[in-house]
């Protein structure tokens, strides 16, 4: 049986600096896999290769058995990969509903229609998605006036518009208050379980990582140095030294308290 996503030997160098070196891993449907590591460890490079923003030097990225390495982002999305960004990326001149409609229109390959107004297209489905992330009441508001936590929810709704099999979330809770973090991740948990979506996410908040990840990978200087269940990774001496530091006790304690 082939995994949902299977990455093998992924490598990328920038001007002689090896950003990502021979990284291999796999994700199964319904699994939440966290990618953690110090700043500059290569997490973002890794992410951008999966999403097609950067072309890998070497290695294969197989989505449902098909190699997608080097495809442009818009084609990778069409194969069933959704994405949320570290700093939210939404269409600021549109309403919340229009943002979701955009994704649906694109999903239906209707983005080149020149005549029929966009306002009436895919409304019901957009409403349903907004309902799912708890943003239905704010559908008519401009995205530019939303609170940050709400924007993150809109992003999630957009990312779900093409019924993805795989969701890539880059620091999904960055810039959010503790309560919002928990709410957003719980929502993600539910949706992932419902739809059997595989999720890969990066995160610096260890509370979030240890409370929500099914499995954790640790990247350092472009290489995977540990991989496994949260408890195993937390106990790993090398990981504690280069990444977790002393704050892991406090972080883990409050994380458990919250979940």
């Amino acid at each position, binding site marked *: 049986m082939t995994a949902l996503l299977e990455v093998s030997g992924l490598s990328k160098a920038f001007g002689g600096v090896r950003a990502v070196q021979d990284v291999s891993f796999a994700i199964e449907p319904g699994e939440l896999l966290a990618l953690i590591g110090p*700043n*500059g*460890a290569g997490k973002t490079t890794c992410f951008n290769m999966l999403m097609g923003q950067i072309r890998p030097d070497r290695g294969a990225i197989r989505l449902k058995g098909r190699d997608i390495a080097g495809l442009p982002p818009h084609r990778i999305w069409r194969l069933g990969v959704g994405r949320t960004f570290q700093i939210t990326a939404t269409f600021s001149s549109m309403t919340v509903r229009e943002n979701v409609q955009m994704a649906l229109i694109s999903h239906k390959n209707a983005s080149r229609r020149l005549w029929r107004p966009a306002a009436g297209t895919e409304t019901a489905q957009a409403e349903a998605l907004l309902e799912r992330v708890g943003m239905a009441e704010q559908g008519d508001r401009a995205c530019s*006036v939303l609170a940050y936590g709400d924007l993150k929810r809109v992003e999630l709704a957009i990312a779900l518009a093409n019924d993805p099999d795989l969701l890539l979330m880059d620091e999904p809770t960055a810039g959010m208050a503790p*309560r919002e973090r928990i709410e957003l991740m719980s929502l993600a948990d539910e949706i992932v379980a419902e739809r059997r979506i595989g999720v890969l996410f990066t995160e610096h908040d*260890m509370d979030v990582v240890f409370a929500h990840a099914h499995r954790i990978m640790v990247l350092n200087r472009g290489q995977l140095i540990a991989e496994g269940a949260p408890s195993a990774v937390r106990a790993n001496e090398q990981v504690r030294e280069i990444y977790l*530091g002393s704050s892991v006790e406090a972080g883990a304690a409050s994380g458990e308290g919250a979940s």
Partner: protein
Amino acid sequence: MTASAPPPVLEARDLHTYYGGAHILADLSFVLNDGEVVVLLGRNGAGKTTTMKSVMGLVRMRAGTVHLEGADITGEEPHVIARAGMGYVPEDRRIFGDLTVMENLEVGRQPPRPGAPAWTPERLFGMFPNLAEMRSRPAGRMSGGEQQMLTVARTLMGNPKVLLLDEPSEGLAPVIVDQMAATIQALKAEGLSILLSEQNLHFATAVSDRAYIVEKGRIRYEGTMDALAADAEVRNTYLTV
């Protein structure tokens, strides 16, 4: 609250800041006493960054006053405020990626303040040993943690009296966060007064003397870190973990 004898090193009174029609800061006031580390706590969008930028002159306030060591700096331009002794470390680092570490420090260099030893690259390398090893590396090719240290070092080159640190722990690995906390304590020992903004209560508690809780552009709570730690109700209302 405020000690009566020496004026606070930084005092902001009744700040009002708007973006377009949006009222971002409403009647926001705080003081920072000499040698103190004070934290503005609040969630994203509460107005912490805008407070810092208003104080620094990077955004226009519609009303309010800011005094630095007793001198009115309200409405001054950023470079005037910086030269008056305010150091600003933005949340998104904003290092000059094409410039080397040494050149980044050079951009920050300002004349020393009388009565205090001037910050020099050598002295800063003592505090940030990592940077010493990469003097001529373009800053854009350093890791996020190294860049964060460089922004602090760059600001110190201006020999500030007050340091504004906007979310210094955001997006950093836990070990780097520990280093940042140690740095803040070391700077406090050097006599700097520091205003930081944070969402990370754990980190804020480790480094701060007092806290203001900001929500929707207003101060909702003010007290020492000990008082805040004891006040479960306030924490539950504004900072729920």
